[in-house]
């Protein structure tokens, strides 16, 4: 049976200091995150962040390759241990990565919860901007953008993570997830005016489905910053490596539309579960996957035939209809426990079907659900009204501004995107962890005994209770440490020392 898909999203945000002659993005990202952490520490929130708690790099090994070898000439990603790194009481990690602020959601056990924590991340970034801007000289302002490209060939990622069964051959994952990654842009592309690929003029691609398709050059590989692969092989489970694999997905866009985020992770979790249970009989093997990824992104008609290795063709919608069809059968036969239960699974399938039907009959009818459609409708409408060419800077500016996280400036907030979460649950998720993964244990321990925790990471917490050596509590099982497992234990313990004693560490 397919494993429960524990899920999360890591987003690197674009950042600008406006009004400053010189804008150092690393410094700006540090200012941003420190301002948030200090703001919480000043007591603005009852359950504060943990400014003193650093990230524990003990078990980080992003250079491991899921294929079991590292091809010559590949470079392992570097870990930057010297930059700001905070662990929040909602179980998230908030840090500076390269030259961007990055926030990784806590581990979630279903797609809708990921959406809630992705929005909580936006709220945290928004609060960070406000706090940071109070410290800047008059006329200067830090602004954060939830996009993936600066339109000049520089891209930064929004990665997804899915817990998988280690025994599934990696080759089978690659074969079956590739067609999903190539075609899911239909409903989770964030849209982009023009292209950043070499030699692709605006007349040819005035607008495309995805922010990221221009940047992928390989089918499978370890890299994330150059020669980006459609399927990333980073093998760093952050859990028991004998049992689990964490599929690290780098091909997606950062979404503002809640339905796009929901479908991005929901459909992918279902496809991966079907791969685990060998439930996908048909292989869609594209003749040229990298080119096909772009072809799908560049085709606003959604009708372009895509060539398979056997010489036949298929459209992106046809691939998605077939995956949906299998997912429905999967639910009937196996149930949806792996994606959070029957209700959660049926909701993924229902929205998946509804968005494919909308895209097939009249794409513009998906403008309240899908980012690229919403963005296209807005920008194309503006272009028509003012009689502009597609290469007009005003359209490029709107493209960037769609992703502006400031409440009064961001265009995504104005285009009527459907909500599937409530403000109340999002606000709560900025400080409270999910209840049904190990993030609960991490978050609650930080809330209760932040002073006694010296370091944290995905799979352990390190306590200093004075006197004794530091005590590491391993959390190698992502589905343990939930509220039902440890809720009463944490409530009953008066101190970290008592907790450690009762845990028997």
């Amino acid at each position, binding site marked *: 049976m397919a494993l429960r898909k524990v899920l999360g999203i890591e987003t*690197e945000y*674009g*950042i*600008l200091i406006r009004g400053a002659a010189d804008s150092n*993005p690393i410094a700006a990202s540090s200012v941003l995150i420190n301002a948030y952490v200090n703001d919480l520490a000043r007591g603005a929130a009852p359950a504060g962040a943990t400014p003193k708690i650093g990230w524990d790099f003990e078990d980080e090994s992003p250079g491991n390759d899921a294929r079991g070898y590292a091809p010559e000439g590949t470079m392992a*990603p570097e870990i930057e241990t010297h930059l700001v790194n905070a662990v929040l009481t909602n179980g998230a990690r908030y840090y500076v*990565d*390269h*030259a*961007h602020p*990055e926030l990784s959601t806590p581990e979630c056990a279903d797609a809708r919860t990921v959406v809630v924590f992705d929005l909580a991340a936006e709220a945290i970034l928004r609060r960070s901007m406000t706090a940071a801007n109070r410290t800047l000289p008059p006329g200067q302002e830090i602004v954060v*953008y939830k996009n993936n490209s*600066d*339109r*000049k060939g*520089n*891209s*930064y990622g929004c*990665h997804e993570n899915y817990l998988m069964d280690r025994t599934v051959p990696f080759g089978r994952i690659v074969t079956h997830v590739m067609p999903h990654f190539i075609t899911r842009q239909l409903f989770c592309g964030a849209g982009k005016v023009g292209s950043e690929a070499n030699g692709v003029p605006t007349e040819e691609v005035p607008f495309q489905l995805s922010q990221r398709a221009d940047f992928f050059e390989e089918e499978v590989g370890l890299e*994330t*910053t150059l020669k*980006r692969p459609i399927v990333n092989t980073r093998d760093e489970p952050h859990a028991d490596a004998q049992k689990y694999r964490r599929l690290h997905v780098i091909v997606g866009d950062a979404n503002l539309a809640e339905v796009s985020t929901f479908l991005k992770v929901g459909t992918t979790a279902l496809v991966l579960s079907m791969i685990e249970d060998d439930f996908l009989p048909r292989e869609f093997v594209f003749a040229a996957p990298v080119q096909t990824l772009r072809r799908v992104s560049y085709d606003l*008609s959604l*009708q*372009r*035939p895509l060539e398979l290795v056997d010489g*036949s*063709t*298929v*459209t992106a919608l*046809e691939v998605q*209809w*077939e995956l*949906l069809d299998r997912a429905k059968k999967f639910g009937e036969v196996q149930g949806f426990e792996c994606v959070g239960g029957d209700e959660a699974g049926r909701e993924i399938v229902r929205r998946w079907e509804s968005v*494919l039907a909308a895209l*097939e*009959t*009249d*794409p*513009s009818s998906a*403008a309240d659900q899908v980012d690229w459609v919403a963005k296209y*409708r*807005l920008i194309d*409408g*503006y272009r028509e*009204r003012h009689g502009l060419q597609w290469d*007009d*800077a*005003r359209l*490029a*500016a*709107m493209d*960037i*501004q769609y992703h502006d996280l400031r409440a*009064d*400036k961001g*265009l995504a907030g*104005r*285009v*009527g995107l459907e909500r599937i979460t409530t403000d109340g649950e999002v606000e709560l998720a900025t400080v409270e962890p999910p209840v049904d993964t190990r993030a609960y244990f991490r978050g609650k321990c930080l809330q209760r005994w932040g002073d006694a925790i010296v370091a944290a990471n995905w799979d352990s917490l390190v306590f200093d209770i004075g006197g004794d050596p530091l005590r590491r509590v391993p959390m190698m099982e992502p589905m343990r440490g939930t509220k039902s497992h440890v809720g009463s234990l944490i409530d009953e313990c008066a101190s970290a020392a008592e907790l450690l004693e009762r845990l028997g560490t």
Partner: protein
Amino acid sequence: MAEREQKRKPAPAKQDEVVDDAPAKSETGEKIKAELDDLLDEIDEVLEVNAEEFVKSYVQKGGE
């Protein structure tokens, strides 16, 4: 164009013939158009004033 000679797969096709993307002339179509007009009126106030300068200044380092 050769591209147009597409071979439809026996996918669980919902409908084989696909409507061209001509704007819908239904009532909903009109309503959507009106909403878009309102939206375009409204955003005029928040759009970046110097688009060219803004786009030029939006430079990021690659990440991941």
